[in-house]
């Protein structure tokens, strides 16, 4: 039976209203990469119980659940001459300071430790079969393979399809309590008060509808970043955005409601990818990310020139993987700024318009066939095969259809890795968007609430999620060991239970997809490319109308639809946070892709700071943080991690 016209009794047992109670020391919300690593860190802390709640199935869930082709900023690997300070400072400087100096320092300092951990769990991180013996990007002693900068070797090519099953097995081995197919719908706070200590969460099973109440001494949000605020295609809902539907920023919404602080959510770039209009990720010819440093040719077969930061032509493939003369290292990979500084600028093709002016004819193609064999195998065999959405939809399907990387040239469909054009009002959280504010323990402003991975502000990529997940798990476990018993407020539980089930109690109303379409229309109109106080304030009012109107009539006919309905209500909350964040920044900012029509000045120095917003009753509290609030990085890291440093020095 296909879906068309399907209508029948729900195949799972229905348990509306039944309740499951769980007591644990540390609750991990979200079982993607950050969540699994957080749970493992807690479980390794002997005597600390941990429960992990995941909306899908932990074995393959999350944006990185299906694979990972490269691990960024692993500077403590034995082949890298850089220091964590150097690479983190470069990421901060390249974004004019609008970056998370804590989380990226943790990524640089501990990311390679997590890779070694993964290897012990059964993940494949090095070329043990000597498939790439002799390649310039391979270290013969460690058998590690590197990407991008072959001199500084801080990015490691990996066999990431092996990672998530290994993490899942390790969670099981360590007796992590896993609640799969369970959506968390609210955080619980001491005395049920906003701003109070977080003491657990409530949610429901997305197959049976059973309600769950979890009491915990500490909780860790590992719930990715918001999506579907500006982009949503009902008939292709699952690929409205780059990441899976499940990863839509539930954690942002539920923590906002209890008073967590956010920053940088005013940053949203012009959309880069949406499945309704773009080609499958990594499935078209280009030179970026997974495809770096591929040869490109024009329609006549003439090779496009690679150039260094000064415009000098780079003759060989190997030249594309070295810093320019006088340059120590260049930055490449996920989260790279649109406005890269000369100091960190790496090799690239000239812009398409310039190539056309130079006489190159469209369309362009990626020519894997003319690459050195090892480079070709690294891109098509290893990376297109091990990245999150490539093993089946790209590598296997293209090869089954006859594509041969040693003979064929693959069409490019746009500039860079983009394969579609978007209107300026269509925004997206790509690169390093905003999120929860954290301290050096990866704790939020709320006692008992920690955050990791893309839930944190200015965060990105698999290695970052792994490193920050594990780090947050360590610190949450330490807190839980000495924390007082958490007290749940039963009135709050009953309020949240009523709110959770509300869409399922309606027999008719608005479908969740219609509500999501309404949000995107409002966000494009009132919080698009150019903002102003008047537009944003109108936008908040229109969103409020939507919440009280269509939002209050969204309905669900089964637990799956209830999950989707509550996700969209969370998306509505996230839209409100974005508008509040935009309202408090009164000047335009280039790095934040933030333009105002009611402020003519770009980047006035007095606005070079983090604007922090949180919910205060029904209003919004604002505070400011200095742009380097986390400094000095090395000293603060050591101050907060003596146990880890001691254990790893043995």
């Amino acid at each position, binding site marked *: *039976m*296909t*879906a*068309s*016209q*399907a*209508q*029948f*009794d*729900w*195949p*799972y047992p*229905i348990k*509306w209203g039944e309740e499951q109670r769980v007591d644990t020391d540390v609750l991990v919300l979200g079982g993607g990469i950050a969540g699994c690593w957080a749970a493992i860190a807690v479980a390794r802390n002997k005597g600390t119980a941990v429960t992990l709640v995941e909306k*899908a*199935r932990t*074995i*393959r*869930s999350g944006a990185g*659940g*299906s694979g990972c082709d490269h691990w960024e900023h692993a500077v403590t690997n034995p082949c890298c001459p850089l220091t964590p300070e150097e690479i983190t400072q470069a990421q901060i400087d390249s974004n004019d300071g609008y970056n998370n100096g804590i989380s990226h320092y943790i990524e640089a300092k501990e990311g390679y430790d997590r890779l070694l951990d993964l290897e012990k769990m059964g993940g494949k991180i090095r070329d043990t079969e000597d498939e790439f013996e002799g390649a310039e990007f391979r270290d013969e002693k460690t058998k590690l393979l590197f990407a991008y900068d072959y001199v500084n070797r801080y990015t490691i090519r990996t066999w990431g399809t092996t990672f998530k099953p290994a993490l899942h097995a390790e969670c099981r081995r360590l007796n992590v309590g896993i609640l799969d197919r369970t959506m968390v719908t609210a955080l619980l706070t001491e005395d049920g008060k906003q701003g109070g200590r977080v003491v657990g969460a409530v949610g429901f099973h*997305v197959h049976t509808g059973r309600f769950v109440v979890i009491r915990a001494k500490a909780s860790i949000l590992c719930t990715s970043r918001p999506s579907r605020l500006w982009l949503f295609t*009902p*008939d*292709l*809902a*699952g*690929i409205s955005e780059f990441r*899976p*539907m*499940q990863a839509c920023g539930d954690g942002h919404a539920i923590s906002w409601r209890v008073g967590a602080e956010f920053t940088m959510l005013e940053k949203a770039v012009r959309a880069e990818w949406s*499945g309704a209009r773009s*080609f*499958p990720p990594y*499935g078209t010819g280009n030179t970026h990310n997974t495809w770096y440093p591929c040869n490109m040719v024009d329609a006549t*077969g003439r090779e496009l020139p690679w150039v260094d930061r000064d415009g000098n032509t780079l003759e060989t493939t190997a030249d594309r993987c070295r810093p320019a003369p006088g340059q120590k290292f260049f930055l490449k990979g996920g989260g790279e700024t649109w406005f890269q500084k000369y100091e960190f600028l790496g090799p690239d093709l000239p812009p398409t318009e310039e190539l056309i002016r130079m006489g190159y004819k469209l369309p362009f*193609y990626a*020519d894997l*066939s003319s690459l050195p064999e090892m480079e070709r195998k690294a891109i098509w065999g290893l990376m297109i095969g091990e990245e*999150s*959405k490539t*093993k*089946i*939809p790209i590598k*296997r*399907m*293209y090869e089954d*259809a*006859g*594509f041969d990387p040693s*003979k*064929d*040239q*693959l*069409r490019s469909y746009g500039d860079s890795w983009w394969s579609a054009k978007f209107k300026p009002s269509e925004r997206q959280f790509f690169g390093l968007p905003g999120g929860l504010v954290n301290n050096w323990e990866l704790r939020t402003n709320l006692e008992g609430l920690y955050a990791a991975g893309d839930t944190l502000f200015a965060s990105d990529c698999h290695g970052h999620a792994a490193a920050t997940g594990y780090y947050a798990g360590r610190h949450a476990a330490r807190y839980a060991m000495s924390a007082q018993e958490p007290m749940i407020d039963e009135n709050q539980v009953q309020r949240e239970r009523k709110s959770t089930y509300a869409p*399922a*109690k309606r027999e008719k109303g608005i479908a969740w997809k219609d509500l999501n379409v309404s949000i995107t229309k409002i966000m494009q109109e009132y919080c698009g490319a150019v903002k102003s106080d008047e537009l944003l304030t109108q936008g908040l009012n229109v969103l409020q109308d939507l919440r009280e109107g269509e939002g209050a009539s969204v309905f669900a*006919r*089964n637990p*799956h639809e209830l999950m989707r309905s509550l996700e969209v209500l969370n998306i509505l909350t996230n839209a409100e946070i974005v508008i509040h964040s935009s309202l408090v920044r009164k000047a335009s900012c280039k790095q934040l892709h933030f333009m105002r029509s009611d402020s003519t000045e770009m980047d006035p120095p007095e606005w070079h700071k983090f604007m922090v917003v949180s919910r205060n009753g029904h209003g919004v509290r604002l505070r400011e943080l200095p742009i380097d609030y986390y400094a000095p990085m090395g000293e603060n890291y050591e101050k907060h991690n003596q146990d880890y440093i001691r254990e790893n020095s043995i």
Partner: protein
Amino acid sequence: MTDKALAVGDTDVFIPVSINEETCIGCNLCVMVCQPDVFVPSIDPGGVPVVLYPSECWYVGDCVDVCPVPDCIALHVMDKNKVIWKRKESGEEFQLS
């Protein structure tokens, strides 16, 4: 709210994944692994899962990867996403089918 719940599938959308009803052994591994929960198990024990929410597919192919029966589950590509490639020697063009 009653004890009843209704499964109402997406209609008139592109079907991204299909299961060969002749070879499917009804193990439900595809149902288990699917992140967006596109499938539901058959009401009949051992029956073929139903692709109930095709519009929610992420096109990752974990269902294809986990299926123990070769070629039982197929992922489909929308016509507009059928990428072109060119054989370098002959100039002949091919398109993902």
